[in-house]
């Protein structure tokens, strides 16, 4: 995937069409409509789940990075929401092979960075060392406004990882119903005080 202006223009255009065709991008739904069995299935650890693309070390690396991006606060974070499992599913069932390989290459690069700075893998690093690596990647991936620094191709991975973490988290049951709330079905109100809701719709 090339990151050029053409693609950005087209993506924006498509996003606008999605908006005007109903804004059904995140497909939020009513938590109250879930039956008890579904709720139990969510709280239980997934049975017989095994990654299909990531190996155990890569899976843990994704889980640790995702938890740094969306950590546990007063609500659960990315790991509890199963973002790492979602990433494995996307890599297995959705990503074209070259893009999947590029993502796996990005994971290897994270470990290489950790090794060159700390002499150990990312997962083996202390939390503050991990944060330092991710902060450096974040700053390279999102140059400060007004700066001339163009985004180097290798910064693709962190943006991708961050986007996947956000999608995986906020479309999970935890993210969509605990951290945020789905917009309830029933009526449409076009202008309500934000204070009456107090958080974004998922």
């Amino acid at each position: 995937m090339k990151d050029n202006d053409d693609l950005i223009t087209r993506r924006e255009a498509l996003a606008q069409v999605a908006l005007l065709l109903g804004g059904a991008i995140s497909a939020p739904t009513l938590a109250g409509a879930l039956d008890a069995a579904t709720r139990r299935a969510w709280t239980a650890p997934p049975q017989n789940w095994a990654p299909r693309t990531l190996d155990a070390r890569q899976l843990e690396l994704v889980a640790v990075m995702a938890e740094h991006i969306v950590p546990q606060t007063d609500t659960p974070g990315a790991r509890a929401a199963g973002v790492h499992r979602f990433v494995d599913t996307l890599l297995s069932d959705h990503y074209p092979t070259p893009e999947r390989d590029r993502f796996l290459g990005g994971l290897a690069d994270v470990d290489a960075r950790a090794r060159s700075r700390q002499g150990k893998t990312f997962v083996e690093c202390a939390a503050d060392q991990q944060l330092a690596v991710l902060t450096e990647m974040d700053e390279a991936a999102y140059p400060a406004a007004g700066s001339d620094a163009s985004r180097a191709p290798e910064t693709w991975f962190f943006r991708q990882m961050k986007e996947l973490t956000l999608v995986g988290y906020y479309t999970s049951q935890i993210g969509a119903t605990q951290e945020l709330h789905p917009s309830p079905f029933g009526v449409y109100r076009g202008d309500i005080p934000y204070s009456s809701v107090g958080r974004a719709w998922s």
Partner: protein
Amino acid sequence: MITYDAIVIGSGITGGWAAKELTEKGLQTLMIERGRDVVHRKDYVTEHKPSWELPLRDARLSVGTKGAEDYPIQARTGQFRESNKHFFIKDGKNPYIEDKPFTWIQGDQVGGKSLIWGRQVYRWSDLDFAANLKDGHGVDWPIRYADIAPWYSYVERFIGVSGEKLGLAQLPDGEFQPPMEMNAGEKLVKAGIERAFPDRHVTIGRVAILTRPLNGRLPCHFCGPCERGCSTGSYFSSQSSTLPAARATGKLTLVPNSVVHSLIYDADKNRVTGVRVVDAVTKQPREYHARVVFLCASTLGTTRVLLNSQSPRFPNGLANSSGVLGHYLMDHHFLAGASGSIEGLLDHYYQGNRPNGIYIPRFRNLGDDASRRDYVRGFGYQGGASRQGWGRGGGERGFGVELKRKLHDPGTWSMGMTGFGECLPREDNYVELADKTDDFGIPLLKIHCTWGDNELGMRKDMAASAAEMLEAAGCKNVRTHDAYRGGGQLGAEPGFAIHEMGTARMGRDPKTSVLNAFNQAHDVPNLFVTDGACMASTSCVNPSITYMALTARACDHAVEELKRGNL
């Protein structure tokens, strides 16, 4: 051999209407559908599924991704995603050849694209019906607004349309249920645009979605993604509306999985006598016979059947003595417009997923001083405002607790709009049969279609005028967009608006058109075409309600002619 009174080919928006009208008028009617059956409610398998129950979280399945392997064409549209892919055709089942990029989006099921359509419904006006005559592009429509107005009303009362009356000559009002509400951002932009441009109007979209109960269908509950199917029947589809009405007569027979190969023509009687079908599962041929045939197989599907119905009398396709069958293919051109951010309103929010946006009716070339010299005809805008959601986090620096706290609140407001522009009818935009055949022994369509100077010139104004209005309304960071790339690249090529029209046009003169004022073939009196193939021009408004009104009107005429013994 069973003979029916009428055969309707296709079960989408126009096929459903033809079946309803013909059966209600007493005709034993056979509806033939190439795709699988889709049962109302039962087969809406993703309806109301929460995001986390969809393995890919309702990913947009773009071309080249896993999950889209069987849909290399359908995956081009932004509407193709994990939750609705089962309502699009697997492209291998109906391949076609593109001379230049032309995206042919197809349903392949009972209900056709009525399950996944955009639901925006706007009446044409005499500005549209007289356009060809006025500027000389295409042939004159054989009807005017007065001919179709009562049929618009008839259709609107049955399908249910919510919207606001504006009293505009170029966008006639209809029989409306109460409109949906604009949100705070849209209201602000509306006020700004209408203050700066008193002749322009911002209104809520007129949609075939109920805001009041109608015929056992319930008002919209604002869950959001209509295109997964709607068990409450809140939006118009064949399943929710016309098929139940047709079935209630006891006179409808529906055969899915039946691919129409060609029509059977009796040269002695100069009548169509039946339909040749290939079973989609067994590949076995079958025939059905009837006194009158309605082709409602989608614009290109219909024309392909006619082109493939060859006989000594019509060697180049049935009812094609004019030679224009297949020509004058059109689509709306869109994906040119602008967006910007709205400052303030941070204590304003909305609730519910409104499956609708705003509409700005055409304001160019109305015959007044807004007329342009660089292009003819005009465009309207669709758009909307919203507050940014959690997705904005992927575009900004920062992560961790701070990011999570920030995304707990919605972001700033933004407003976007994209134009839908009229396309001129051109002879060199056409379809023909290729030498190659598909799995059913039917020649593939080869499509030749490009935008002309008029469309490309209009697009510049579509983008610039959108930006001008957003800036006048006080929006910041206004940016234009135009997805058209040219040079044969995908972006906003013909077909992409899924409003393909023409190729069997209506007209006054049998020498230059295929159909008369009642959608009846000039050459073959018991053959009717009422889907988008019949269109002689495109207007700039969404076409489906016009197809519906033309269909109902054509059915009325056909039954009268049957009674008079003329068919």
